[in-house]
């Protein structure tokens, strides 16, 4: 029996190996044949012009992820604190599902939502109607943010609930009000969990595809821009566009290999973030 289960467990290793192999065996062509001047020199991502400005995509991803975190961190953390420190059990069982349902919303749905509602109703109202007529990095960023709220909330809530109630009692026993207990005892004790939540969410936002693809305001090709109210491509959106436009093109230009090249870059980033987050999460586990 054990042997069987062991095999099952090992498949996860096989998968990781397969991922790396897929990325590099296909990305290799790009890495070897591309004119690197067009990767670092250029200021536009347009694979069909052999313009592979990775900077454009990185900045795009940076902006979208940044906006997402600005939206998700306060909301997610606030919700987590309320649920773990303030909500009475009854209230909790009513409110928690909100986050869980939100967590269940597929990203395509949020993409469409970002395009047909967030863009006009939120971005349009906040930054001027002309910015709300179509997809922008702002609209996409907000969409991605909404997508990551539940992640931040659940991970940091777990961390705060892991703080032994004896500490809360000690604080209350000294005449501390809930706010002091929360800010001076619980949060500091749970800090690594909260950080982990933040990092995990960042990595999730970085890897989120559909929202940006649908509501990011660009497809297939983008000029370098650092204005959140422009449309542009993130790494993921660029991959999706390449796939839609080219999923059946076999190796004519460097377009398809570039798909895997971006894949490598994206994988590297998220992998790094996940590793760091994992450190923090485990610190929480060891703490008590």
């Amino acid at each position, binding site marked *: 029996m054990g042997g069987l289960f062991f095999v099952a467990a090992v498949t996860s290793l096989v998968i990781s190996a397969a991922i790396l192999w897929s990325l590099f065996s296909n990305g290799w062509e790009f890495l070897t044949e591309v004119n690197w001047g067009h990767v670092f020199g250029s200021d*536009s991502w*347009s694979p*069909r*012009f052999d*313009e592979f400005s990775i900077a454009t995509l990185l900045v795009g991803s940076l902006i979208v992820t940044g906006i997402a975190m600005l939206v998700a961190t306060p909301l997610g953390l606030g919700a987590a604190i309320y649920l773990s420190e303030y909500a009475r059990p009854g209230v909790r069982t009513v409110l928690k599902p909100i986050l869980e349902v939100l967590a269940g919303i597929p990203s395509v749905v949020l993409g469409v939502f970002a395009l047909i509602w967030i863009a006009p109703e939120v971005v349009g109202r906040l930054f001027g109607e*002309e*910015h709300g*007529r*179509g*997809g922008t990095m702002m609209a996409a960023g907000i969409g991605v943010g909404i997508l990551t709220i539940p992640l931040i909330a659940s991970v940091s809530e777990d961390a705060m609930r892991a703080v032994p109630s004896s500490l809360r009692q000690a604080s209350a026993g000294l005449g501390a009000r809930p706010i002091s207990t929360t800010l001076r005892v619980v949060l500091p004790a749970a800090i690594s969990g909260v950080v982990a939540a933040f990092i995990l969410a960042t990595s999730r936002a970085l890897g989120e595809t559909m929202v940006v693809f649908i509501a990011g*305001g*660009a*497809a*297939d*090709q*983008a*000029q370098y821009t650092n204005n959140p109210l422009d*449309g542009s491509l993130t790494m993921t959106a660029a991959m999706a*566009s390449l796939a*839609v*436009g*080219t*999923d*059946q*093109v*076999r190796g*004519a230009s460097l377009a398809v290999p570039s798909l895997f090249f971006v894949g490598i870059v994206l994988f590297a980033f998220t992998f790094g973030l996940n590793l760091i987050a994992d450190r923090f999460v485990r610190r929480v586990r060891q703490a008590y």
Partner: protein
Amino acid sequence: GNSDDDGGGGDGASNLTGSLNISGSSTVEPISSLVAEEFSADNPDLKIAVDGPGTGDGFELFCQGQTDISDASRQIEPEEAAACKKAGIDYVELAIGFDGITVMTNPNNDDVECLSFADLYALTGPESEGFENWSDAQSLASELGSATEFPDETLDLTGPGAESGTYDSFIELALTDIAEAQGLPENQLETTRPDYQSSADDNTIITNIEASDYSLGWVGYAYAEQAGDSVKELEVSAEPNGECIVPSDDTIANGSYPLSRTLYIYVNKAKAQENEAVSAYVDFYLSDLDTWVTETNYVPLPDDQVEETTSAWSSFNGS
């Protein structure tokens, strides 16, 4: 094991089996899809798939023998033809309808009504790289003999990506000749300025047009029509200060509208012979060309050209 009677009804369920793969121009895709839909109503067990990655990508596949039929919004190019030949793929080219390319701006833009090819070249050609304002193009335009007054407003340029037939056609129709006249190097004859917001997705183009008051862009006639009043369709003249023509079914069909193009399907002869479904599909396609094309908001061929197409097909199919 599917029930043969079905919603489609239609003329005589021949009920073919096997599979049929069509790819190519995203402009033609709706037409071929519609045909496929009706066709599979009669042949429920036949697997048909229609994709629209773009004319260029379509020919890639076609010339690798991966697809049976390739939709195209322009004629096959020499390199592509060569690729087909190399792979020993022989094909018939069938014209099926017209698509106008509509040049658009934002409805709020009252300063521009009509643009000549010269103006378009000045605004979108390779030489215009870096122009931020309409007025930046003024000198180049006048240099080319145009008298159009450009507003001093930021120029938000948007159009299809290089993979789409619309992109190629636009260059062919509007830019290449002038580019040659300007004596540009080879590699710049076939391109626009690289620095514009391009998209494979006509919807993005439309929304980009909507997004800025002094936007400029071009897109397939059908899409522009569907977008309705959210965009402003510009008149076009071939010659500087020439006759401005508004895109419409008539002006396109009678060829007076300079920015219109013919739509094609390319059929792989070998596949047509070995796969009954292919020829049957093409027969069905041509049997009612007018309906398909109009239903999908394109401009049908005049009768004489319909004749040419059908004869071209039957001459191959007959033999």
